[in-house]
């Protein structure tokens, strides 16, 4: 399945299934990735995208390969701990994947972020992570508790 086809299929699936996504509300104060900022279902969608699009460079287990940095473990934590989720979201949305930057939609980028956070043991909750950088600026990436 091509990348474009995969993205199309996922997009249609969202619409056809009437998938009910509860998007996080407007910016809230002092939220962190330990505050259940995505859903398990969203992380699963992000996993599919990740394994199809990102794993070639970053590895199927998010370990990173050479120039593509790890997206899990202490190196990921050292790079991103203290940043806001919007930073990670925008970095992915603007510059990834390297062979086709900018090809992920906002929601798909948010789904991939949800998967990365999930892989790094951030807890899932009932509200989805929205594809809105302004909202994501209010969520800080922290080590899991």
């Amino acid at each position, binding site marked *: 399945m091509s990348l474009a086809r995969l993205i199309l299929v996922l997009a249609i699936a969202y619409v056809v299934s009437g998938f009910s996504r509860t998007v996080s509300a407007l910016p809230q104060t002092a939220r962190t990735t330990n505050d259940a900022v995505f859903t398990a279902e969203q992380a699963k969608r992000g996993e599919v995208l990740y394994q199809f699009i990102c794993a070639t460079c970053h590895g199927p287990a998010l370990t990173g390969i050479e120039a593509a940095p790890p997206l*899990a473990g202490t190196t990921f934590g050292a790079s991103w701990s203290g940043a806001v989720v919007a930073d990670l979201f925008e970095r992915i949305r603007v510059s990834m994947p390297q062979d086709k930057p900018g090809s992920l939609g906002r929601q798909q980028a948010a789904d991939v972020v949800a998967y990365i956070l999930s892989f790094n043991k951030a807890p899932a909750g009932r509200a989805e992570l929205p594809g809105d950088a302004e909202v994501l600026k209010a969520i800080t990436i922290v080590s899991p508790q």
Partner: protein
Amino acid sequence: MRRLFASFFICGAACAALTGSLSGQTAGRTVEWRTYGGDLASTRYSPLDQITPANFNTLEVAWRFKTDPLGPRPEFNFQSTPLMVGGVLFTTAGSRRAVVALDATTGEMRWMHSENEGARGDAAPRRLSGRGLAYWSDGRDARILYVTPGYRLIALDARTGALVAGFGQNGVVDLKLDDDQDIDLVNSDIGLHAAPVVAKDVIIVGAAHLVSGVPKSKTNVKGYVRGFDVRTGKRKWIFHTIPQPGEFGNDTWEGDSWAYTGNAGVWAQMSVDEDLGLVYLPVELPTGDAYGGHRPGAGLFGESLVAVDLQTGKRKWHYQLVHHGMWDMDIPCAPILVDITVNGRAIKAVAQPTKQGFVYVFDRVTGEPVWPIVERPAPRGDVPGEWYSPTQPMPTKPPAFDRQGVTLDDLIDFTPELKAEAVKMTARYKLGPLFTPPVVSNWEGPLATLVLQNFNGGVNWPGGSVDPETKLLYVYSFTQVWALSVVPSDGKRSDERYISGAARDPNAAAPGAGGAGGGGGGEGGPPGLTVQGLPLIKPPYGRITAIDLNKGDIAWQVAHGETPDNIRNNPALKGLTIPRTGQPLGRIGTLPTKTLLIAGDPGFTTRPTGQRGAMLRAYDKATGAEVGAVAMPAPQTGSPMTYMIGGKQYLVVAVSGGASSGELLAFKLPS
């Protein structure tokens, strides 16, 4: 950001007192930085002495140059070391690898050149802005030379940025042609992100490929090295890093594997001794980073340091640092040329830092090791079809500058509980010394061989630096365990029998089929190598080492880089006092000047003020004591350089990372 940079301009009475003494001996003086490595010896050394331990903390930003508009999108991994010649700073930059010329005192752009390579650029194995460029002048013409992502060598007029009409085809040499092999002009796996080197009117160009853990095929493009005439662009010579029949070393490839095996490029910087007329080539490993079953034999010149004639490309000597590699050690950085004295004997030496933590030191005239390098029996693995070298070369001096291999003594021991958890985790892995080979990954164990170092640690492309006066070599390395294993190939992703990978939990669902998303290894892969969010091993996680090349000993070693937030704030360490750990990431180049050793932090941390950024640090060259630090908005990603114009010393470094796109920061002392 505004608040962050306000701190740069804070200058109290102390710096006001210092400025009065700045202009004495250096008024009007200009000191350039004319090549990527500071000189053709790749010392990265500058004799400048205006910025000192006493005034480093007063550095202020002279100018900033943001690279976002130079390509269709921002770049977040800006690795260039600029050049400064005649008051003009030259650099590659931006997501399309443009070349810009800037006023070196203000950062104002004088000209820009960009090549839109279309599909060829989109298919390039090594994209983005690259690591730099080369300058050449005969006193009349002055040229800038660089290699595009699509693997074309470009010559520009250094004064105007215009293509040089008499060079190649209107200023362009297509590097996919005239390479002694057939290469697809658009989709082939060859490119380069290093800067070309120019010496004695010869341009030397290497090659880079895609990461080869899961190569599409055992058959790939070969990474030959070529020399070109700087005036015409005409090829002068080629060196076959995988020797052809009849050439020296071809018999180290069994079963004619030389014919189809590729890679073995020189993607690191090269160094040149113009007096000896020799170019020093650090060659990477051939196709297959973790499996060499399709390329039986020692495989010259894979992972070899090769000295070739500057004018003809003929091999003068070589030394293979890893026989038949399967650890992706490559040779990742520039050989450093330095004249040393060992036991009273003057030696023209070449010192080669490596991922595996050794600095290999040779007489660069003859290729003889300065200190014995002993062939020691190497552990043999059991991956089907793999070829194992019975021995591997082990330097007796200098000592390794970073840890090698993994034992239980290396594991985290901040508390007995953490140590116990780490020991339990490693039970499913194979441990062993340097050169312990990969295993076929098995979920029940062994999952992988735990290794220190390979591409996930040690030193990489920034390499080292040296003070030619004291003969101290400086190198940054980071220490991180990597799980090295292979799995059988299903033939879809690669025609190799085994590829890099790890066993999945047989009870876990396939990705996207309801498999757990959370937790390390949640998609069925191996568990992450962390213990309660901490690295599996003891700190330091990042360090700078100084090696006395006259003695072959380590002079000092310090942790480099602030302790990361996720380690400093980890609940398991509450109540403990943890010295600075350094950071388990980064490619950091060091800059020795007459007065200081300078290097930036590789990652973001949060300062006590709450601001997130990175520090540019200065060390005492003789002791490693930190003597100063200034704030940067993002980590160092390009190796720093320095120059002087009008008696004022500037310090320039490329920064980027996280959500911070690439920019150059230029520092100077207050006026």
